[in-house]
């Protein structure tokens, strides 16, 4: 579904990704962990070209999306993204946050988009917030809405960039719950997170990134009980 070939990304002199290659299959839940500065967020943000790779290729559904001739806006319609800081549109109500993209991109009529939004809001238990503004919601509620906003586009893959890192501890659970449910529904997911419990429980593969490369990749079971590289052993000993 997503094939990454020899991905490099530099910010001026700072080389953040040093030749990452990976293959994500449909239905997989890839969890990416690693120390800060390891390049895991940059890797994720390259997948929908929020960061332009310095070199290397990314293929999505048989299309080389790093080709400058590709209409990246079209591609992004199929790749949902959830951010650490939610990034709900502050000037719009929850309902309009969800319906803006489908309606403006002419994927749905206004009525259809609203109906769909209500259905999704119900799924995360927030239908009574439809007319509220983001400023009146808690962090956990905002992130659940952000997930719904992405889902309203019917994406084929969902990217999560540390979705629970900015939340109060007591709100982490409600967001992870929604993500778990999404995983069970068969969605292809790539999740950058520090939640090791989530990685173990939901991930089909866990990647360990360090120094701009994927250092180790394994099933959650093997990843946590039998880490190979000394760097991962050290990392796990600190976080578990």
């Amino acid at each position, binding site marked *: 579904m997503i094939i990454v070939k020899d991905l490099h990304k530099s910010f001026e002199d700072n080389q953040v990704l040093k030749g990452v290659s990976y293959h994500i299959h449909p239905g997989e839940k890839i969890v990416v962990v690693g120390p800060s500065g390891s390049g895991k967020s940059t890797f994720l943000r390259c997948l*929908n070209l*929020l960061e332009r790779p310095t070199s290397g290729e990314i293929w999505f559904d048989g299309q080389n999306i790093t080709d400058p001739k590709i209409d990246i*806006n*079209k*591609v*992004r*319609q199929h*790749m*949902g*993204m959830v*951010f650490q*800081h939610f*990034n*709900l*549109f*502050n*000037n*719009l109500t929850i309902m309009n946050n969800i319906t*803006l*993209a489908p309606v*403006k*991109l002419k994927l749905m009529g206004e009525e259809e988009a609203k109906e769909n939004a209500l259905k999704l809001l119900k799924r995360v238990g927030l239908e009574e917030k439809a007319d509220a*503004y*983001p*400023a*009146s919601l808690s962090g956990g509620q905002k992130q659940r809405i*952000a997930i719904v*906003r*992405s889902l309203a*586009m019917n994406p084929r893959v969902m990217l999560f960039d540390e979705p629970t890192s900015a939340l109060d501890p007591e709100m982490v659970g409600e967001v992870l719950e929604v993500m778990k449910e999404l995983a069970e529904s068969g969605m292809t997911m790539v999740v950058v997170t520090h939640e090791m419990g989530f990685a173990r429980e939901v991930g089909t593969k866990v990647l360990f990134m360090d120094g701009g490369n994927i250092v180790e990749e394994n099933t959650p079971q093997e990843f946590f009980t039998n880490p190979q590289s000394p760097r991962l052993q050290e990392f796990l000993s600190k976080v578990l």
Partner: protein
Amino acid sequence: MQNIWQHIYAAFIEADRWKLYLKGLGVTLEVSFFAALLGILIGTIAAFLKLSTRKNGSKTIASRIASAYIDIIRGTPTTVQLLIMWSGILATCKNSVLIASLTFGINSGAYVAEIVRAGILAVDKGQMEAGRSLGLNKFQTMRYIIIPQAFKSILPPLGNEFIVLIKETSIVGYVGMSDLTRVANQMTSKLFDVFTPLLGIAFIYFVLTKVLSILLAKLERRLRKSDNR
């Protein structure tokens, strides 16, 4: 006490002198209004040009031109700009309101450009990223997400700029236009009374700017709706 009333009577009422002030006020308002419109138009365009970047993130030529315009206009006195327009660039033009409106509009545009630019930059960049990640293009995200949010923070300094603009038009007497200030000035030498005409127009200017700021405050409150917690 009687003396004060005599002064006021002489300065404003005797010989229908209030009509002169009214005419002067008309000139001041006309120039301010058209200059403000032009300033918003030029300023908004200049702000977006200055913000424009190429694909690789470097500045466009349009961006450099906009920067130069802002630099030059902000770096030279308005009076000098007005005199240059009057006696140089538009010397053959007979319509003095047009000349003044153009001058102040171009001048105000430079300040408005920086106000608009700052407002857009003040919107969290996560908002643009979220819009783009949903498949909206840059223009759509600007239009539906960024500009409505920027507008809220643009409004207060923009109001400030309009207040400055109204007051700054008081220099049009330099090029022979009879605005509020010039009328009062002529009156002081005619009546040998320095204070009354000037205090009178100071009051008028104050009322003008006060009304403007009340209207803007109202608009601001309405735009705050989405901030309610």
